[in-house]
């Protein structure tokens, strides 16, 4: 519970929330996609799994990092993100899970997610992951048009998507998610609709739709300008957002977060931890953790990350992270919580803070972008308009409290 008063800050809650989630970053990829600025390591098209010395070494260091962490409660969610975690052999994933189990324990019924990419895994691999306890797969589909996939620098084809989903199904997996990107260069509204319909037809439990963000360091960032040809205009990408929302909700998906849709009961438990501003571990290169009120992002290259883990074992270097001030915690709670369609309850804040927030969002309530329910004290952005202008609303709230 936040105890911020109107004037500033009043002490952090004394009881610290238990950490029961872990994000593990697997940085390896065949190549770098043109829109990607994640911390990754490119391996090329041939080598993966135990054949890759780089992966072997990384897992060894990752294991050390986990073992050097102070033990907390047993984990309820684990998320292997990347990168392309499906470049790991099941045995390698097993080593990491063993390390986590040894350090924290893994609770029965924990959600264990794995990001996988088409054309990087076999049916046997899926069965191997499953046997280790992985129970949620997130498939990086991005688009259903070969031309668009090629232009985005993806290393798989449309056909590979069907093959991948076929393998998941054959492995008896029901709980899988598909990732899609809107706003790709040259992408038309029609193509976007096709992708959505094809995704729906594959009957996943969960779909994520990301509007392309041009990051300056990426190939796209250097080549294109946001909203300018060949990228679709803001008018079109805003329309894509609305189309996704219309098609997916009519197909029975719940739009539970700005970019995420799920069939009833299949929301991603791990990602909800972020949005509810609860603590989590982060392991691996570039991974971010939020433990004990401190946020820490690990170094983004392998060399620096290895040195950092070395420092961790020697007790030197920056391993604690930045303390999040009470005011920042409030802003983060708002920034993350308002991503969820259910929003957040203002009852968690002091009456002064609540009043200040309500004053700040008043014009947006009038405009129909924000809803406040006095009885439940729930503050929500509306779908789709409130979501589409969430930064406008949030930046006002940021100014209110800084």
């Amino acid at each position: 519970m936040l105890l911020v008063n109107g004037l500033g800050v009043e002490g952090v809650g004394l009881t610290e929330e238990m950490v029961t989630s872990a994000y593990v970053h697997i940085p390896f990829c065949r190549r770098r996609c043109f829109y990607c600025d994640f911390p990754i390591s490119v391996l090329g098209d041939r080598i993966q799994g135990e054949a890759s010395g780089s992966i072997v070494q990384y897992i060894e260091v990752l294991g050390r990092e986990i073992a050097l962490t102070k033990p907390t409660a047993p984990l309820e969610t684990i998320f292997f993100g990347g990168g392309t975690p499906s470049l790991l052999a099941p045995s390698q994933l097993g080593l990491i899970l063993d390390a986590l189990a040894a350090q924290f324990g893994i609770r029965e019924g924990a959600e264990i997610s794995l990001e996988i990419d088409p054309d990087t895994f076999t049916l046997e691999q899926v069965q191997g992951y499953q046997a280790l306890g992985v129970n949620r797969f997130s498939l990086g589909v991005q688009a259903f048009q070969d031309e668009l996939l090629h232009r985005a620098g993806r290393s798989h084809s449309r056909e590979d998507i069907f093959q991948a989903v076929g393998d998941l199904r054959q492995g008896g997996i029901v709980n899988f998610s598909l990732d899609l990107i809107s706003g790709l260069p040259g992408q038309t509204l029609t193509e976007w609709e096709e992708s959505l319909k094809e995704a729906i037809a594959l009957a996943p439990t969960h779909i994520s739709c990301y509007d392309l963000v041009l990051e300056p360091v990426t190939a796209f960032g250097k080549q294109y300008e946001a909203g300018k040809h060949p990228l679709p205009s803001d008018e079109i990408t805003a329309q894509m957002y609305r189309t996704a929302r219309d098609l997916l909700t009519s197909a029975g998906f719940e739009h539970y977060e700005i970019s995420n849709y799920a069939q009833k009961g299949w929301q991603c438990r791990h990602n909800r931890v972020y949005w509810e501003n609860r603590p989590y571990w982060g392991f691996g290169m570039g991974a971010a953790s939020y433990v004990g009120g401190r946020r820490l992002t690990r170094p983004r290259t392998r060399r620096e990350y290895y040195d950092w883990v070395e420092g961790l074992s020697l007790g030197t270097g920056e391993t604690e992270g930045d303390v999040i001030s009470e005011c920042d915690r409030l802003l983060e709670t708002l920034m993350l919580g308002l991503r969820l369609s259910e929003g957040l309850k203002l009852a968690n804040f002091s009456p002064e803070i609540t009043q200040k927030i309500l004053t700040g969002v008043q014009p947006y309530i009038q405009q129909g972008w924000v809803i406040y329910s006095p009885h439940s004290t729930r503050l929500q952005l509306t779908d789709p308009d409130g979501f589409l202008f969430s930064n406008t609303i949030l930046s006002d709230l940021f100014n209110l409290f800084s």
Partner: protein
Amino acid sequence: MTDVPVSRIRNFSIIAHIDHGKSTLADRLLQATGTVEDRKMKQQFLDNMELERERGITIKLQAARMLYKDQAGEEYVLNLIDTPGHVDFSYEVSRSLVACEGALLVVDASQGVEAQTLANVYLALEQNLEIIPVLNKIDLPGAEPERVIQEIEEVVGLDCSQAILASAKEGIGVPDILESIVHLVPPPRDTVKEPLRALIFDSYYDAYRGVIVYFRVMDGRVKKGDRVRLMASGKEYQIDELGVLSPHQIQVDELHAGEVGYFAAAIKAVEDARVGDTITLANSPAPEPLPGYTEAKPMVFCGLFPTDSDQYEDLREALEKLKLSDAALSYEPETSTAMGFGFRCGFLGLLHMEIVQERLEREYDLELITTAPSVIYRVTTTAGEIFEIDNPSQLPPATNREKIEEPYVAVEIITPEDYVGTLMDLCQTRRGIFKDMRYFAQNRTTLVYDLPLAEVVTDFFDQLKSRSRGYASMEYHFIGYREDALVKLDILVNGDQVDSLAMIVHRDKAYSVGRALVEKLKELIPRHQFKIPLQASIGTRIIASEHIPALRKDVLAKCYGGDISRKKKLLQKQAKGKKRMKSIGTVDVPQEAFMAVLRLE
């Protein structure tokens, strides 16, 4: 301090371009004469303002008294009077040169003569100063003393047979320089018996003692406790403290003709003791003041507005304080529909403007929005009245205007030959009138143009530097008002006229400036939830229009693997940007938009 015969005094200054090593040489002279002990030496003793040290230039002049025993064993008093190294302060330069009998002309042996140096040399020649050429930095690999000597002889017309080769950094040539000062620079005229006349060449404000006045006694003598009159301001003061600069202040009881010193007399602001004014004794005044006094007049104006309207009072206090030590600064309150309450400020030139802005932001911790610089226009109405206006919004309606005149300056540019074409092009596009072109020395050309000052204050210097890859230098001086076909260009954002974006421009350029401006504004003003028309107009006639399409989305896709820091930073940046914006009607306009006028190509 013992009484020094006038014949043993030498007053000199150093003329040099920025970076040619003036301050380093001054430091060496202080060390070589034992004025400042080596261990107390901090680099560049004379430039003691933080800003000056950062930029490596001298803005405020300083002085230093040195004792020197020449090779024949005779003792001399040398007074170094430093000069500011920028054209904005040419009046101050001329006053400190008047206080001297000689000058060292310091030229970088690998660079050669620059426009600014030339302008100051001419000032020195006008005062009949003995000029000693010093080629500095001869230890550097690129040094070409022969070429540079030839250049000085050809351009300046100075005899360089006695030029000194030096490296201030390495201490080379320093003894020769000291000997030359003693033997080439003439002593001051011995007018000790005449009524007191002392020339103010600088002053600064001290919070405890009031204004500290730096002066050179031209005639007569002055004592501690004397009641003095400043002949231009007519004000009288009792001298509380009298002294010399070594370079620290050392109190003395009396100074006589030829000597340089300072006094304090509870003077409240430097405008009461302006540079160039003559000090005389109140009870036996000199019949005539020293010639050449003028009041430094602001030439360039701009609006300064606090970003945060709560800082208006702070800004007013800061300007008041700066004004105490800067007589050339002028300011008066201004209200703008777009920017709220602020001040219209007048400066000697662009550098002066920049210095004041920086000091306000740095020393007084203010966040400011600065409007585009402008000049004073002279407007004659159909009724025959003449107005001087420094703000386009004061312009009477077109129907009531008989004519508009604008200030012109003569600009002298020195450049390597390769850039002559592009610099002539620059002057032409800035409505320049070609006056002269001279080739001198190797690969060096002088260009002389008459230009409207308004064209010089908007980005001209940056353009000059970028077009010549930094090689060209320039100097300008005011030559008078001239009538031009000038019009007022208005900018409308969402139908609202924006005072702070209005400009006075030449009719022939109005269309292209208007177009460029609306295009720039289209880039700089963020999208809003509605479509925003942008227009440029002359009177009621729209000459250019654009529009900013409505905002369709403002959302970030994803937080990667729980790393929320970047999303938070983006939001903070957006929030901060919003805060710095000013509302015009329902449109939020960022500060850069108000600066857009400055950066038009």
